[in-house]
């Protein structure tokens, strides 16, 4: 095959090109020809096709994501907003924090271990590229039915992959989620998030400026794995790659090398410390195509790259393949000529291969050469930032009304105390509500020696400064069942829960990232869910004052015609001035008073109870009251700062009883609960009304605490006491007049389910 040079493309305008196989639509191909004024070369076609894929261009979601930039709450903490590798917020004392969540759903279904592992690798490089030291990871996960045989294949592999990669990097895993629902059977959701910390002056951006500056590719050699990964795996063509069809359209899976990534982290941090880079970008989806076009597009000049210089693992790769390869553990830096030698020295110190592959030029073009011939000559913005934008049609699904009319509040309720007790026990042991310790114990949560809170606390928390005790906290939440019933409210509930979790730990919520997992954007039902969810999230962020700093969209999560539940996952980042004031979930002190904060209504739509007991999904999700969420958060934060509470646990799926049982198990104590006068026991224990938390108040603080709640107008109801000393073998969780469950029976029910299924 002869090389398809720019000259050749000019001379053979009619040559046939495989644009359709690369996932481009006819009008998209036409647009490329229009931009270039000729047909693209093979290499240019490769670049446009990966960069204009849904994954890289956000072509279906862009029009909706715009709101996150438009409805921005006043917030001085924001240092870098949407559009960079990750957003950056000010957390005080000169520190800045960058964080983001990304999806690696499709690869993890095909190859659970490597798919999940490289998902962690990718998000960590994003954080690193901002100039930050990665300090923690989180992993919101969703799988098919817990007892489905394929879940036995996928879950252990995903968990081992996340652990295998993250543990080897030395990043504590401080939170996440594990949710089972048969809607995820053919589309598990593997989202991964990372937090990084830096000083304000260390923030780095992905841009190539300064004519004559060198472009350096460093890290792993480029191989033939993962070619076209984003366009194949994260797009409609993925459908052809279901388990039986794997060979028909071989998915481009990559193998991760966490050791190489660890070296890359240390090497890059040392390079930052000596101020050696003018711009930097990680290589993720779309590999070099993405890195070079984004760097050049964001910078002031053009860029020239000699592809021959790229270190290869496989010498037979074509230039198109080199441009598209998604080999992991690579970074691209722009470096002033005078600093190149020192840059190379540091790479050598860390055994990292580094190569000058090009330089910043005066023009405005991205030019790529192979064997001395020009094979790419494009305006980089058209590749990186001016891809197609679709206004996909959307409409409220015809089935939505019927779904909402199928009211969960009308389901048969337990007839007596024994039935109530049995249902509580069943709930506590159900896969979604059971302890995830078997999973999270496969993750290192202690490494780096700064972990203040980790699983199973409400939020993860790490210390940022050893001397001042400044810390940051993060929680991630999402509830696909709520979002299916009402995507607008469901997205807001995801934010509200995550926000509440952070506040319950004592930290002040600052900003958010998200990972929006949905079905096919070509389905108007799904597109409506997406439009509603983004609108809901943007409105709620505005109201709560927590800007969106960045995020990720994963579409085409469906099997055949059936989409997953719409699943917006929200990660809230919070800050705490003094980590010694953090609030754990454990009930520890006998005799402390239990207060329920917020109001309880009959709200069972989408609830854990309706799923576990009735296998039902219908009605409306719990009502959202963001002003109440904000007030609750303020109370939780003040109470923690002023030492008025010793434990707090937010209420979410499973309701009050779930939270109380978890806090008792964590502390090793029992509890005695009294049903308030205005509630029936069932609603009291199992309703999922939002905006609530349970706290444990030392008797000496009771007055001060209730005064504060009263003064600020937050309903606080005394619902019982912590009962029995820590490790009392006879401790019970008792609901007076209803039932008593021995703590050890609860522990067994809560902890045996997951190992029973997967160990």
């Amino acid at each position, binding site marked *: 095959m002869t090389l398809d040079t720019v000259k050749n493309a000019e001379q053979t305008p009619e040559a046939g090109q495989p644009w359709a196989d690369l996932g481009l639509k006819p009008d998209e191909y036409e647009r490329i020809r229009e931009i270039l004024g000729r047909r693209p070369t093979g290499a240019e076609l490769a670049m446009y096709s990966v960069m204009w894929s849904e994954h890289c261009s956000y072509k279906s979601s862009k029009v909706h994501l715009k709101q996150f930039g438009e409805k921005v709450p006043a917030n001085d903490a924001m240092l870098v907003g949407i559009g960079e590798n990750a957003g950056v917020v000010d957390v005080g004392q000169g520190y800045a924090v960058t964080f983001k969540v990304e999806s690696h759903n499709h690869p993890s279904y095909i*190859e659970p271990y490597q798919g999940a592992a490289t998902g962690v690798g990718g998000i960590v490089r994003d954080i690193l590229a901002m100039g930050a030291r990665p300090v923690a990871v989180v992993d919101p996960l969703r799988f098919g039915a817990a007892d489905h045989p394929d879940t036995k294949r996928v879950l252990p592999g995903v968990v081992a992959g996340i652990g295998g990669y993250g543990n080897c990097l030395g990043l504590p895993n401080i939170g996440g989620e594990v949710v089972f629902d048969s809607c995820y059977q053919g589309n598990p959701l593997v989202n991964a998030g990372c937090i990084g910390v830096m000083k304000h002056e260390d923030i780095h951006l992905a841009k190539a400026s300064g004519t004559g500056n060198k472009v350096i590719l460093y890290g792993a050699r480029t*191989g033939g*794995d993962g070619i076209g990964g984003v366009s194949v795996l994260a797009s409609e063509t993925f459908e052809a790659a279901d388990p039986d069809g794997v060979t028909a359209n071989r998915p481009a899976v990559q193998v991760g090398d966490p050791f190489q990534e660890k070296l890359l982290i240390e090497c890059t941090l040392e390079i930052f410390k000596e101020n050696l880079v003018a711009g930097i970008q990680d290589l993720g989806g779309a590999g070099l195509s993405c890195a070079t076009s984004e760097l050049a597009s964001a910078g002031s000049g053009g860029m020239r790259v000699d592809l021959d210089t790229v270190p290869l693992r*496989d010498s037979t790769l074509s230039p198109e393949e080199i441009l598209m390869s998604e*080999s992991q553990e690579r970074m691209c830096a722009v470096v002033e000529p005078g600093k190149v030698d020192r840059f190379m020295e540091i790479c050598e110190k860390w*055994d990292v291969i580094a190569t000058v592959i090009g330089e910043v030029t005066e023009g405005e073009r991205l030019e790529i050469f192979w064997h001395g011939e020009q094979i790419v000559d494009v305006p980089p913005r058209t590749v990186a930032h001016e891809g197609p934008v679709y206004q996909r049609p959307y409409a409220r699904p015809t089935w939505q009304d019927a779904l909402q009319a199928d009211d969960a509040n009308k389901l048969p309720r337990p007839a007596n105390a024994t039935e109530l007790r049995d249902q509580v026990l069943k709930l506590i042991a159900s896969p979604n509500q059971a302890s995830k310790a078997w999973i999270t114990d496969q993750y290192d949560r202690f490494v780096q020696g700064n972990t203040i809170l980790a699983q199973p606390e409400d939020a993860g928390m790490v210390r940022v400064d050893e001397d001042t005790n400044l810390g940051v906290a993060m929680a991630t939440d999402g509830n696909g069942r709520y979002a299916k019933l009402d995507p607008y409210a469901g997205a807001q509930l995801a934010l509200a829960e995550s926000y509440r979790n952070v506040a319950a730990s004592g930290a002040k919520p600052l900003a958010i990232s998200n990972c929006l997992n949905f079905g096919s954007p070509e389905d108007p039902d799904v597109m409506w869910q997406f439009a509603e969810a983004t609108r809901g999230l943007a409105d709620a962020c505005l109201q709560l004052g927590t800007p969106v700093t960045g995020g990720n969209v994963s579409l085409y999560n469906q099997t055949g015609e059936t989409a997953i539940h719409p699943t917006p996952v929200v990660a809230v980042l919070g800050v705490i001035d003094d980590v010694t004031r953090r609030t754990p979930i454990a009930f520890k002190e006998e005799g402390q008073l239990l207060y329920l904060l917020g109001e309880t209504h009959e709200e069972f739509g989408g609830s854990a109870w309706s799923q576990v007991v009735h296998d039902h999904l219908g009605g409306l999700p719990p009502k959202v009251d963001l002003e109440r969420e904000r007030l609750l958060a303020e109370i939780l934060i003040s109470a923690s700062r002023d030492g008025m509470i010793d434990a707090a646990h937010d209420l979410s799926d499973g309701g009050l009883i779930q939270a109380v049982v978890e806090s008792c198990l964590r502390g090793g104590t029992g509890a005695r609960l009294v049903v308030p006068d205005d509630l029936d026991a069932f609603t009291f224990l199992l309703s999922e009304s939002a905006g609530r938390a349970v706290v444990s108040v030392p008797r000496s603080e009771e007055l001060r605490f209730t005064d504060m709640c009263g003064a600020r107008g937050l309903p606080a109801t005394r619902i019982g006491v912590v009962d029995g000393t820590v490790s009392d073998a006879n401790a019970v969780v008792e609901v007076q007049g209803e039932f008593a469950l021995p703590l050890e029976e609860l522990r067994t029910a809560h902890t045996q389910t997951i190992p029973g299924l997967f160990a």
Partner: protein
Amino acid sequence: MARVVVDVMLKPEILDPQGQAVQRALPRLGFQGISDVRQGKRFELEVDGPVDDAALARIHELAETFLANTVIEDFVVKVEEPAVEAK
């Protein structure tokens, strides 16, 4: 009873970080002249009964569906002991 061996190796185009780490260590240990190292898995299966074509076909299937992940790995099935008297 006979022994059947299944060798599972990463496909040539897939990164083999373990093999690479071993190879990079060789010069330091004073070993020259080894241009590539790949590391894979070796399974030794003790098979009751005759290792006939049917048994080998089943082991082949086992390798394909379980021992190897054919998205990233290739495998080879070999009978190790003289065996095959069964024919």
